[in-house]
């Protein structure tokens, strides 16, 4: 008794003599007592004194014990206040009425001090237990609310970091169904400064907060590096290295990454640990790309391989990426979704709309029926479209700081090892992005830079023939030759100089690339009449379209492009 506060017992008994006895019995047990002589008094005292246990006579004048018990139970709500009926009624029907009125037990006359003590003691334990449970429940509820509140705020931050990028593009359809506030899947997409697009689908071990925490640096690195013009291999390597550093052992991120090149109608693809990426060809074939690597975050940088598969993807062809949750889906006959099944379905179905709604339907069905034991499900369909269509879809560019570098020049010279191992484009873009308002034309600048630098290295220094790239086999041959010659490079250099000058309308960026190669006959190329066959050459028609002028000097190993840009009047585009 000493460790818990004194329990209050309300005694309701109309017979004064009986009341005396029971009051004495209860008091002798060390409880505080309150006496009521009928139901009305009992309710009043209940409200006023909040007793812990109630002893209630059944038959009383004015309001009997049944009615009083019912009303008190209504007042009690969530709390547990046991009502023990005092009764000399001992037929079954009367006892049932006691229970129906909310009674928890009986005490029959004549009262036995031992029985009373034992019953009150037992109920006291239950009352204490109930209170403990309630306190803990309230505590859990409070903490849960707190946690949800925190998660909501964290979710906002998360959504800002791991935003969906350019997933709204007309050629992308996607389905993201999070199992909790946070999703174990991460889906990112970003336009490359050079005009293409990279889509990243990651599936972290587990879901919820731990998975989301891993997704944040992935999104950061992804958007940062894509915007700076880094290639897909570099981006994959960086993400792997970051995850390898931050994720505990046993946690990793399965991922499919696709780099879409709209102008070449080609894709580069990396799949580590995820389901096959499917490519639906225009001829009806379905080509699977199996996972060739371990998921991201497992291997240290020196063992990691970010080599991608490259292949043609013509306008109208579609590529499908899935997270593992998709295999938990069940169709209307409760048959499990299988990738093979889906591949077969793709083979016979050429209507993209139908394919997507087919998956949506299965997802909806599965959620309705197996809500609790289903993983995060993410599904993306990307269609190859022509470059003109995609480049008309403006992206929002935030440009808050109008101060910056407007009149400057720089020169950067690369020698053998750097030419082989370093991609200078992100560095160059980083500098050009310091020019306020020029950021909007980032894509153009990146394309001009890429073309000139690629020309300088591939054709100027390595003497490769771009005609090779006209066939899939040729592509492979081209890159094999490229690697071979890069490794044998000696005594060569490539100089890139940039100069920017502002003018009233905007500014002028002069890009000059000089290689130490043998040069080429630039007079042979008709700059004014772009031909399809020249598209894969030095990209000169593209440069001509983007630049005010393009001039070759010397043996053709010096190229100078003048890119002139105008400030955008229409703020909606910014």
């Amino acid at each position, binding site marked *: 008794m000493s460790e818990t506060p004194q329990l209050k017992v309300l005694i309701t008994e109309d017979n004064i003599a009986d009341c005396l006895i029971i009051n*004495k*019995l209860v008091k*002798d047990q060390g409880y505080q007592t309150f006496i009521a002589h009928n139901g009305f008094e009992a309710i009043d005292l209940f409200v006023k004194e909040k007793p812990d246990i109630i002893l209630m006579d059944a*038959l*009383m004048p004015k309001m009997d014990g049944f009615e009083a018990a019912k009303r008190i139970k209504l007042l009690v709500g969530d709390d547990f206040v046991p009502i023990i009926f005092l009764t*000399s009624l001992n037929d079954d029907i009367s006892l049932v009425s006691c229970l129906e009125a909310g009674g928890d037990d009986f005490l029959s006359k*004549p009262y036995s001090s031992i029985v009373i003590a034992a019953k009150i003691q037992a109920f006291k334990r239950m009352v204490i237990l109930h209170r403990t449970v309630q306190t803990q429940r309230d505590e859990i509820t409070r903490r849960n609310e707190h946690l949800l509140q925190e998660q909501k705020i964290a979710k906002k931050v998360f959504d800002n970091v791991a935003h969906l990028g350019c997933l709204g593009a007309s050629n992308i359809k996607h389905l993201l169904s999070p199992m909790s506030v946070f999703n174990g899947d991460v889906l990112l997409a970003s336009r490359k400064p050079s005009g293409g697009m990279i889509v990243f689908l990651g599936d972290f071990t587990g879901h919820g907060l731990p998975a989301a925490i891993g997704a944040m640096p992935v999104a950061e690195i992804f958007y940062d590096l894509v915007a700076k013009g880094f290639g897909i291999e570099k981006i994959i390597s960086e993400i792997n290295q970051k995850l390898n550093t931050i994720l505990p052992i046993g946690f990793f991120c399965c991922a499919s990454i696709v780099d879409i090149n709209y102008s070449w109608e080609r894709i580069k693809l990396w799949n580590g640990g995820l389901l096959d990426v499917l490519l639906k060809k225009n001829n009806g074939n379905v080509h699977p790309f199996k996972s060739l690597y371990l998921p991201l975050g497992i291997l240290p940088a020196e063992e990691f391989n970010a080599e991608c598969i490259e292949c043609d993807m013509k306008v109208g062809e579609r590529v499908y990426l899935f997270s593992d949750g998709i295999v938990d889906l069940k169709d209307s006959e409760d048959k499990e979704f299988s990738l093979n099944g889906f591949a077969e379905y793709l083979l016979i179905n050429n209507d993209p709309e139908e394919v997507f709604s087919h998956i949506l339907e299965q997802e909806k069905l599965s959620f309705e029926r197996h809500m609790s034991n289903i993983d995060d499900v993410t599904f993306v369909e990307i269609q190859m479209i022509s470059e003109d269509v995609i480049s008309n879809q403006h992206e929002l560019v935030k440009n808050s700081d109008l101060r910056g570098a407007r009149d400057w020049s720089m020169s950067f010279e690369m020698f053998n090892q750097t030419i082989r191992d370093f991609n200078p484009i992100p560095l160059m873009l980083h500098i050009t992005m310091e020019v306020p308002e020029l950021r909007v034309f980032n894509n153009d600048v990146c394309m001009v830079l890429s073309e000139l630098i690629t020309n300088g290295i591939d054709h100027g220094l390595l003497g490769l023939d771009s005609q090779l790239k006209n066939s899939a086999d040729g592509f492979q041959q081209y890159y094999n030759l490229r690697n071979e010659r890069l490794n044998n490079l000696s005594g060569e250099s490539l100089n890139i100089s940039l100069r920017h000058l502002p003018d009233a309308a905007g500014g002028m960026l002069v890009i000059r690339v000089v290689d130490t190669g043998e040069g080429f006959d630039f007079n042979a190329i008709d700059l004014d009449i772009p031909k399809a066959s020249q598209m894969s050459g030095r990209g000169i028609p593209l440069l001509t379209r983007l630049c005010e002028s393009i001039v070759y000097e010397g043996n053709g190993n010096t190229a100078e492009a003048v890119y002139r840009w105008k400030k955008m009047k229409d703020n909606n585009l910014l």
Partner: protein
Amino acid sequence: MSIEHLNEAQINELALMLGDEFPEFVRTFVSHSEDLISSLKKQLNTKDNDAFVISIHSLKGSCRNIGAELLADHCLQIERTARNDIFAEIDPELVSICEEFNRLQATLLKLARI
């Protein structure tokens, strides 16, 4: 002490438990029971049947509590008759109850040394 209408063990236990309060308890029991009996007669007279059942039930209960088995049995018999709604069979003067109550009262007062 041999008391035919009173359960000896029970009254003794009660006396022991209540200690100094026993005489006060006896007085309360007696006066409350007298009130109940006069209410019973009134309720019979006015045909207030529901109230009659509650009163007889209450008297029976407190008799059981002190071990007054004989009086409790008389009450039980009358309570049953009343619950069966045959009030005509109930003695309007409740002679059996009054007589037994008088004997019980004498015994109790003696026990409590009043």
